[in-house]
C-alpha cells in the first residue's frame, strides 16, 4: 500500500498548482448556486403559513449553522492529520478553517436572532439550538486565541490542533446536555430519518442554498490556504518565480 499519493497530495506546491486550475470553475459554480438559491428562496418559494415571510431567513440560517458545525469537525480532522502524519498542509487548512468557521457561526447566530424577533418576540431566546451554537462560537474563539498565543508557529498549530480535538469530543456532550435541558426550539426541520416537515417547494431552494454554502466554504478555505502556502513557502524557488511573474504582470498593466 504505497502512501506516496497521500504525501504527494500533502505537498503545498501540488495543492497550490491543482487549485489554481479548477478554483475559478468552483467559484463560478458557487456564485450560481448562491444567487440562484437565494432568489428562488426569497422570491419564488411559498411563504410559511404561521411565520409568513420571515421564515425565508431559513435559507441563510440553516446552511450557516450546518457549515458552522461541519467546519469545526473539518478543522479538528485537519488538526488530527497534522498531528499524526506531521503534514504542514493540514495544519494550514486547520489554521484557515478556524476564522472561517467562527464567522459562519456568528452568521448563524445573527440570522437566528433576526429570525427570532418576529417569530418568538425577542432577539435572544435561551433555547437548545441557539445556546449550543453560542458555545460552538466560544470553542472557535478558544482555538483561534490559542493559535496566535504562541510565538513559535509549530507549537501554536499543535496546541490548537489538540484543543480542537478536545472540542470535538465535547461537542456531542454539549449538544446533548443543552438539548436535554432546554428543549424549546422547533425540532430540526431536516432530519434525514423522517421526511422533511416542509413543503417541497420551500425545501428545494434550501437544498440548493446548503450546496451553495458548502461550495462557498470550499472556495473561501482554499483561497486562504493558498495565501498561507505562499507565506510559509516564501523561500522556495517556485514561490519566488510566481512573485516575479506577478510583479511583471502588474508592471505590464501599469505601463
Amino acid at each position, binding site marked *: 500500500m504505497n502512501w506516496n499519493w497521500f504525501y504527494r497530495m500533502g505537498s503545498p506546491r501540488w495543492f497550490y498548482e491543482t487549485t489554481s486550475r479548477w478554483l475559478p470553475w468552483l467559484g463560478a459554480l458557487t456564485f450560481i448556486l448562491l444567487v440562484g438559491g437565494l432568489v428562488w428562496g426569497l422570491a419564488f418559494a411559498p411563504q410559511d403559513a404561521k411565520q409568513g415571510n420571515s421564515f425565508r431567513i431559513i435559507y441563510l440560517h440553516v446552511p450557516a449553522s450546518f457549515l458552522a458545525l461541519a467546519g469545526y469537525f473539518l478543522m479538528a480532522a485537519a488538526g488530527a492529520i497534522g498531528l499524526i502524519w506531521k503534514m504542514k498542509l493540514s495544519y494550514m487548512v486547520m489554521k484557515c478553517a478556524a476564522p472561517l468557521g467562527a464567522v459562519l457561526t456568528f452568521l448563524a447566530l445573527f440570522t437566528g436572532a433576526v429570525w427570532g424577533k418576529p417569530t418568538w418576540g425577542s432577539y435572544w431566546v435561551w433555547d437548545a439550538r441557539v445556546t449550543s451554537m453560542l*458555545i460552538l462560537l*466560544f*470553542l472557535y*474563539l*478558544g482555538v483561534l*486565541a*490559542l493559535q496566535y*498565543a*504562541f510565538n*513559535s508557529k*509549530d*507549537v501554536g498549530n*499543535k*496546541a490548537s490542533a*489538540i*484543543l480542537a*480535538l*478536545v*472540542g470535538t*469530543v*465535547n461537542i456531542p*456532550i*454539549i449538544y446533548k*446536555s*443543552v438539548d436535554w*435541558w432546554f428543549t424549546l426550539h422547533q425540532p430540526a426541520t431536516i432530519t434525514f430519518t423522517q421526511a422533511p416537515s416542509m413543503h417541497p417547494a420551500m425545501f428545494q431552494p434550501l437544498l440548493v442554498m446548503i450546496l451553495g454554502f458548502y461550495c462557498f466554504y470550499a472556495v473561501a478555505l482554499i483561497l486562504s490556504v493558498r495565501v498561507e502556502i505562499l507565506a510559509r513557502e516564501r523561500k522556495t524557488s517556485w514561490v519566488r518565480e510566481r512573485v516575479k511573474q506577478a510583479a511583471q504582470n502588474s508592471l505590464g498593466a501599469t505601463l
Partner: protein
Amino acid sequence: MISNTGFWAFLRRDLLLINRRRGEVASPLIFFIMAATFVPLGTTPDAELLKDIAPGIIWVMALLATLLSAESLFASDYHDGSLEQMLISPQLLVMPVLGKVTAHWLTTGLPLTLVSPFLGLLLSLPAAGYLPMMAGLAVGTGCLSLLAALGAALTVSLQKGGLLLTLIVMPLYMPVIIFGSATAQYSIQGLAWSGPLAILGAMLALAIALCPVAIANVLRLTTIN
C-alpha cells in the same frame, strides 16, 4: 522502586508543596464565599427569589474558584525546571499528571464542597438541596479540576496565560454546570436527583480517562518550545 516517579510520589510531593504554603489553599475558598455574597447584594436578598437560583450561583462560583487556582498547577514547576525533569523521568507521563491533578482537587475541589453548605445558608437554599448539592460538587469539581489542568498545560509557557486559560476551558465547563445545578434543583423540586448525578459521574469518568492523556501530550509540546 525509585520514589520520585508515579502517581503516589507526585501526589505526596504536591501535597507537601501546597502544605508549605497553606495560606494559598484558602484563597479560592475566600473567593468562593465572597463572590457568592455579591449575588444577593447585586440582585435581591428576598429568600423566595434566591432559593431558585441558589444552586446555579453556588456552581458558578465553584467553577470560577477552580479556574482561579488552575494556573498554579504547572506554573511553578515550569519556572524552576522540574516540569522538564518530569518529562524525562522513567514513568508513564499520565501518572504524575493524575497525581498533580488529584492534589489540586484535594486542595480546591474538596474544600469547596465542604464549604458549600455554608453558602447554601447564605443564599437560602432549601433544605432538600444540601445533600445533592454537596454530592454534585464533589463529583463535578473533579471534572472541573481535570479540564482546568488541560487549560493550564496548554498555557503553561505563556506570560499572560491566565486569561487565555479561562477562555479555552469555559466552553468545556458548560455540560458540567448544567448537570451540576440540575442535581440540586431536581431534589428541590422533589424529583429523584440520582439521574443528573449519574451523568456527572459519567462525565468525571470520561474526563479521568481522556484528560490526563491529552495533558501529557500537551506538556511534551508546550514545556520546551
